[in-house]
């Protein structure tokens, strides 16, 4: 059976492939053996390797055929040259010693083992002498080299059925005699047979090897896919903490599993964040809503026009505060969800910092504190200008708010510099600061250091800054501005941006 027909027998048919896919869906863990085989042939890796093997075999076959043909031609040429030389010899011998010398030479030569063909024939083609019993008719008619091989029967095998082929040179002597010197072609065709046999063996070994590799790849790949689909079934059932199995080889399957796992991790985190936000909303918005309701009830029960007006204004103020809180919460969750990530571009952090400082400088002055800026120019980050701007605004707001309470002359600093492969934008004040053990808490939503909540604010400012930093792949660091000053150590908030990679 030829390789080609053997391959076509196993070529996957589309209808079967889809049927086996369906069978995998219904019973992912226990594919039947026949189904497994069909599945294997429908797998891409196997299909690809089959195509490669086919191509390789084709090339090898072509090469062998070419080499065979070339060597055959070479052999034939060599044969022809020696025979023609011999014919020339005979011709010269005839000139020297006539037919007798020719006969003697030919007789001697034909006795040697593996001798050439020697024939002396009469003018009408009847064989007079030589080691050949009979010739294909018409061979002796033409003078010179016989283009096509002809059949003959050697003298030693008279009466046998096996036919021999040969090529020869025919010489016509003056007296009308014809001399044929030829060589049996048995040798070249045996050579071809050997080459062909070698080719078949090579192909057989190649096919066997391919089959083994094929089986190995298919089985291995299938088993891993089975494991992956089993894991994803569990995830689909709602267990988001499940992960796909990852091997140690780091091949395509492992990379796929890894990136799917990363995706699952992100989904899980977002899910968690969403739940936390809704919990917080439920918990922390109840208080201001209750306050709002009480004020409305007060206003309703108030008879005096001016007092009612004050109550109503309070209600509007309370609602505005609620709206702000809502906006901040929404903003934080949107930033955390990373949906804004698509809007990131290269922006000039130095310009944003300088702009923000300029915007807040009069505010600081009004509040009676001095602002110092040390901004290195031309520092670029990959980010969202609006979000970074808002984060800086929040930090400046905080710094001004808390520095004002400081005993000595209140000051704030805005510094931007390039350090240790990152860009550090820090905003410092010399206010009361945050004790080291509470620094973890201040970025939590609705957390406020001041329990009495006497300063205005939503308790969300730093949470937003932290979310913005996370979106930008950076970090938020809190430290004391002046550790030595126990009275008013101040707070330094540093936004650490990763340096842009060129």
């Amino acid at each position, binding site marked *: 059976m030829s390789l080609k027909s053997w391959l076509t027998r196993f070529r996957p048919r589309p209808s079967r492939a889809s049927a086996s896919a369906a069978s995998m869906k219904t019973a992912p863990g226990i594919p039947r053996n026949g189904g497994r085989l069909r599945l294997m042939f429908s797998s891409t890796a196997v299909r690809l390797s089959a195509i490669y093997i086919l191509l390789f075999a084709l090339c090898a076959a072509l090469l062998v055929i070419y080499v065979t043909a070339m060597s055959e031609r070479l052999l034939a040429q060599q044969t022809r040259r020696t025979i023609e030389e011999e014919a020339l010899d005979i011709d010269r011998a005839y000139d020297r010693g006539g037919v007798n010398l020719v006969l003697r030479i030919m007789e001697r030569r034909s006795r040697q083992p593996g001798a050439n063909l020697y024939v002396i024939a009469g003018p009408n083609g009847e064989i007079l002498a030589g080691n050949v019993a009979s010739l294909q008719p018409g061979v002796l008619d033409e003078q010179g080299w016989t283009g096509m091989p002809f059949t003959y029967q050697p003298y030693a095998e008279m009466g046998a059925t096996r036919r021999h082929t040969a090529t020869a040179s025919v010489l016509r002597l003056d007296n009308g005699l014809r001399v044929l010197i030829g060589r049996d072609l048995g040798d070249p065709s045996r050579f071809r047979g050997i080459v062909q046999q070698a080719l078949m063996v090579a192909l057989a070994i190649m096919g066997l090897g391919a089959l083994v590799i094929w089986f190995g790849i298919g089985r291995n790949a299938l088993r891993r896919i089975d494991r992956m689909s089993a894991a994803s079934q569990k995830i689909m059932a709602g267990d988001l903490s499940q992960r796909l199995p990852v091997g140690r080889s780091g091949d395509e399957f492992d990379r796929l599993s890894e990136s799917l796992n990363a995706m699952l991790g992100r989904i899980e985190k977002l899910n968690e964040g969403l739940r936390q936000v809704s919990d917080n909303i439920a918990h922390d918005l109840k208080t201001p809503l209750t306050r709002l309701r009480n004020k409305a009830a007060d206003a309703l029960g108030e008879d005096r026009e001016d007092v009612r007006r004050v109550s109503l204004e309070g209600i509007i103020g309370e609602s505005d505060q609620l*709206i*702000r809180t809502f*906006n901040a919460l*929404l*903003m934080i969750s*949107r930033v955390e969800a990373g*949906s*804004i990530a*698509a*809007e990131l571009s290269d922006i000039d952090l130095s310009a944003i910092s300088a*702009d923000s400082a*300029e*915007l*807040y400088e*009069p*505010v600081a002055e*009004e509040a009676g504190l001095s602002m110092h800026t040390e901004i290195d120019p031309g520092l670029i980050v990959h980010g*969202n200008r*609006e*979000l970074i*701007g*808002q984060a800086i*605004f929040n930090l400046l*707001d905080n710094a001004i708010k808390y520095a004002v309470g400081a005993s000595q002359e209140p000051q704030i600093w805005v510094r931007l510099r390039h350090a240790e492969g990152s860009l550090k934008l820090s905003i410092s004040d010399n206010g009361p600061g945050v004790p080291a053990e509470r620094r973890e808490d201040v970025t939590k939503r609705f957390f406020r250091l001041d329990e009495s909540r006497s300063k205005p604010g939503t308790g969300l400012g730093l949470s937003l800054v932290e979310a913005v930093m996370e979106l930008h792949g950076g970090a938020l660091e809190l430290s004391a501005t002046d550790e030595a000053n126990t009275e008013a150590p101040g707070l330094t908030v540093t936004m650490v941006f990763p340096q842009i990679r060129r």
Partner: protein
Amino acid sequence: MQTFSSPYSSADDKSAGAGDAADAIVPRMKILVIEDDLEAAAYMSKGFKEAGIVVDHASDGESGLFMASENSYDVMVIDRMLPRRDGLSVISELRKRGVNAPVLILSALGQVDDRVTGLRAGGDDYLPKPYAFSELLARVEVLGRRKGTPEQDMVYRVGDLELDRLSHEVKRAGKEILLQPREFRLLEYLMKNAGQVVTRTMLLENVWDYHFDPQTNVIDVHVSRLRSKIEKDFEKPLLKTIRGAGYMIKDEG
């Protein structure tokens, strides 16, 4: 599809911002409001009417699209989430049909990226919900007036105050006033919209190019600095604070 006649006809409960702004209104601006929340639409219509603006109202995307194509409006206020046809698709369809009236998008999704997609769809301004009506009114008026104020005016004048956009010179009664670059842009924006209320958010957007609620008094501090520079040696005040809304530069004559 309906045109609202305000169910509240008494004028004494109107908001401070709308009331003050009403004085500055050029009569008979005609706007279309596409908003599915009928209560919000009624509140808006009432406010706009008090400000002297004619309001048509459509309560879903399809009828809004129909009305906007059939009539000519000075400004359209379009909610982003509408029944039957999404607000953004209404806007892009209108732009495709060659309706070029300025559009203000209202949206409950008031975040940076939504704003960008809204403006990309062909909106001219974007206001996140919930909003103060005074903010909406100020923005609608600026949008409606936009075509009336030629951008190529090189010198803005309000009373005896002059601002040259080319040489960046500011003079009052012929006397030069020195301004910081940012103060110049602040005054430029105020004077470009002279006679109209400009809110703090609008100032932050147009002068500093940040699109969020400033929340603190940053803008007020800058405005009061500017005010002290342009009014310090002069008797007549030009830059007014509109309570509950924002600022307006105007020559009272």
